[in-house]
């Protein structure tokens, strides 16, 4: 695939929250990462509004283990409550992803230079990503490194199929779909010998409308240009 990268992401803990357990606050992780979580990881490596990332496949390298921890989440009015969060423990995933241009952003058309973005993406990956990487939840820090997808020994190499049931695929945002709606996609992944081949977001048939939403509009009125910023900085003022 053109414009693709392959990388390994690993960390001590991961929490890809099952939305059914999120409501009450006692979070339980899905057994494997969702498409959206992986997309977020790629976007942390490098992202511009010009791009939409797509995840081809993920390979689960380590056995799926869970570990629960007692957590003290915050309450609105101050103080805290008690909850049990159940994390995945000691995870390692190989991911293959690529990007396409976001055609819903005509304002970024001038920036559509494949080779430039692909090369920056690869450089950013080599450096471990531009922003910090986390697995599902902010407290689960992780690391990315370039790799060759499929290389190395995985725990599920000869395991056969694991049906994962209904899972979240991801969330449709209006600036990526062109529809002024927030939607949630569900799908029924099957892990074959440790590898989940993702379908593209538009191929998901189980789409649930959440609410109406319009993409945030950017123009000169709410974006400060770098030239202006530089000028301000030189004056010694803090923007």
């Amino acid at each position, binding site marked *: 695939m053109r414009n693709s990268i392959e990388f390994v992401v690993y960390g001590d803990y991961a929490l890809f929250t099952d939305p*059914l357990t999120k*409501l*009450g*606050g006692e979070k339980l992780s899905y057994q494997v990462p969702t498409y959206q979580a992986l997309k977020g990881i790629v976007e942390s490596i490098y992202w511009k509004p010009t791009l939409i990332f797509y995840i081809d496949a993920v390979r689960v390298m380590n056995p799926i283990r869970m*570990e629960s921890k007692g957590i003290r989440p915050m309450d609105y009015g101050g103080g805290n409550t008690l909850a049990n969060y*159940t994390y995945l423990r000691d995870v390692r995933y190989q991911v293959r992803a690529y990007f396409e241009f976001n055609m819903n952003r005509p304002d970024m058309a001038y920036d559509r230079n494949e080779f430039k973005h692909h090369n920056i993406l690869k450089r950013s990956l080599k450096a471990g990503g531009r922003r910090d990487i986390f697995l599902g939840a902010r407290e689960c820090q992780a690391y990315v490194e370039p790799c060759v997808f499929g290389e190395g020994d995985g725990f599920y190499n000869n395991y056969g199929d694991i049906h994962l049931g209904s899972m979240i695929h991801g969330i449709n945002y209006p600036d990526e779909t062109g529809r002024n709606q927030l939607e949630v996609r569900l799908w029924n992944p099957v892990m074959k010998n440790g590898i989940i081949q993702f379908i593209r977001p538009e191929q998901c048939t189980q789409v*649930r409308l959440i609410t109406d939403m319009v993409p945030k509009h950017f123009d000169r009125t709410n974006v400060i240009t770098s030239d202006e910023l530089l000028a301000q900085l030189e004056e010694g003022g803090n923007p």
Partner: protein
Amino acid sequence: MSWLLNLYETYEANVDLVGKIETKHNDQEYTLLPVSHTTQNAHIEVEITEDGEFHSASVIDKSDANTIIPCTENSASRAGAVIAPYPLHDKLSYVAGDYVAYGGVIKKEEPFSYYIKQLEQWADSPYAAAKVKSIYRYLSKGRLIQDLVDCKILYADTEHRLIDKWDKHAEEMYGARPPIFSVVTGELTSAFVRFNVYSSSGNILTKVWKDREMYDSFIRFYSSQLGDEDLCYVTGKTLPATDKHANKIRNAADKAKLISANDTSGFTFRGRFHHSHEAASISYEVSQKAHNALKWLINRQAKIIDQRVFLVWSNDDQHIPSIDEDLYSIAPIPAVKEKISFTNKEFASEVAKAMDGYRNRLSSSSGDKVNILVLDSATTGRMAVLYYRNMDKELYLDRLVDWHSTCVWLHRYRKDDNGDVVQFYGAPATRDIAFAAYGPRASDKIVKGLMERMLPCIIDGRNIPSDIISSSFHRTSNPEAMDRWEWEKTLSITCALINKKLNYRREGFNVALDTENNDRDYLFGRLLAIADVLERRALGADETRATNAIRYMSAFSRHPARTWKTIQDCLQPYQARLGTKGIYLSKIIDEVASRIPADKFTNKPLSEVYLLGFYSQRHELYQKKENNDPAETSI
């Protein structure tokens, strides 16, 4: 697959058991509840004829009180002043039309009007069974209390008011306390009434609350009433959704819910979503079936320790060997083998044979999964899934075989059905490991934490956490702190844990004495055992005090060379007392000690291996005594 989907499928696979009442070991009844049904303890049973006339009534004995009743989403979670009647059986204040006439106090509106309206809808619907119509016809007359008073179940005072408390005044009027007052706790108005239909033509009808036709009638009626359809996150189908989920999952008093939504105070889903139904949705049918299956499974086969639920089940056949048992309770036959000179390989195949029993029974449909679920709640209202795995049953059984054939030692703390101590060779139960590591007074909190930590060791073949091993090792090396039986138990369990750790490094030991082993720690352990046995023999059967070897064990493990000198000095009077009988033991002391090279005969602390040497040597000597006593004395 997700845990909810697996629970849902378990329900579907066991649909033939719905409503069938089973009993637990403590005679408590439980059942796989039908959808839209729950259980309640009823106090009064009212029989109604098929034409809707009052027939008779009786007070229900406590042992028979458990009743399956239909319920709606609202009634199942009603609390406080909310008026939400159950569809058929309910409290007196709901079902009696003349409740107010008999002095009943109501808060705002009359609950009966809501109740009877709801029942009317059911009775008029195309799904109504004949029994519902009979009951509706009777109740719409609104004279239940009057009939109950007439047949002397309830009593009214002179002012035509229901007697709520059996005081002196009532006793003057009617005499002894009637049975209803001992059945109902609290106010009489909370007496729960169940209805049954009596056939005047002599046909024996199934009790209303055990009648499958009635279940189906209500399920169909109620499913036609359900609200908006939405995409179900469990099945992926578009079905009527619910936002009210079951509580009472672990027991009848348990308020904790697995699925709940409360974001008026905590940061749970707000941000991208404003309402709970935006964040996730689950269909009524799946929620009902999954929760009912879970309750049933917990009643049936879960281990609950300090409110933490450990559950292992398979969708088709629930009888899966559990992870928290020792080998003796899973497969007593190979475990009590007298012969212990097994190699691990032979033993593993024995365990595998025992497990094959399960394997064969489970092999009816291929690709079966075994589910492991751990539940607990941090606060009263919510419950969390602490651990969930579903794995191939072949793999699961292989892992159990592996665990039970590597974490092994010879134990003598179990008793059989006759109360006799049995000797078994195998893996200890996780609960016993907790007691070995943290002492017999370890709180349930600690036990449950350890059990959860042991799960990955058993089902993923991971290392046992080193703090558990070292804690039991240090406890074992300090026998003075424990009773003798407790120390013996701790010793054999610790040996099993150490053996498992060494097995992981492919250095497993057997209980049978390895006379070829020249490991320093192993030899020191043997020395200690011989000293112990020698002194014990010299003391004779009547003297039960601890031997010097045992008393110095703690010091010995830390400074073996120095302490051994002390122990050997102490041995001399006993050697003298034994005379020629002690020669054999003295000889092996010399033999073992001579095999420790001089440069290793130091005060370097002993590793865990010394316990294995100690146990094996002592076992060997006791065997000798039992079997070859004459041969030994002739030396």
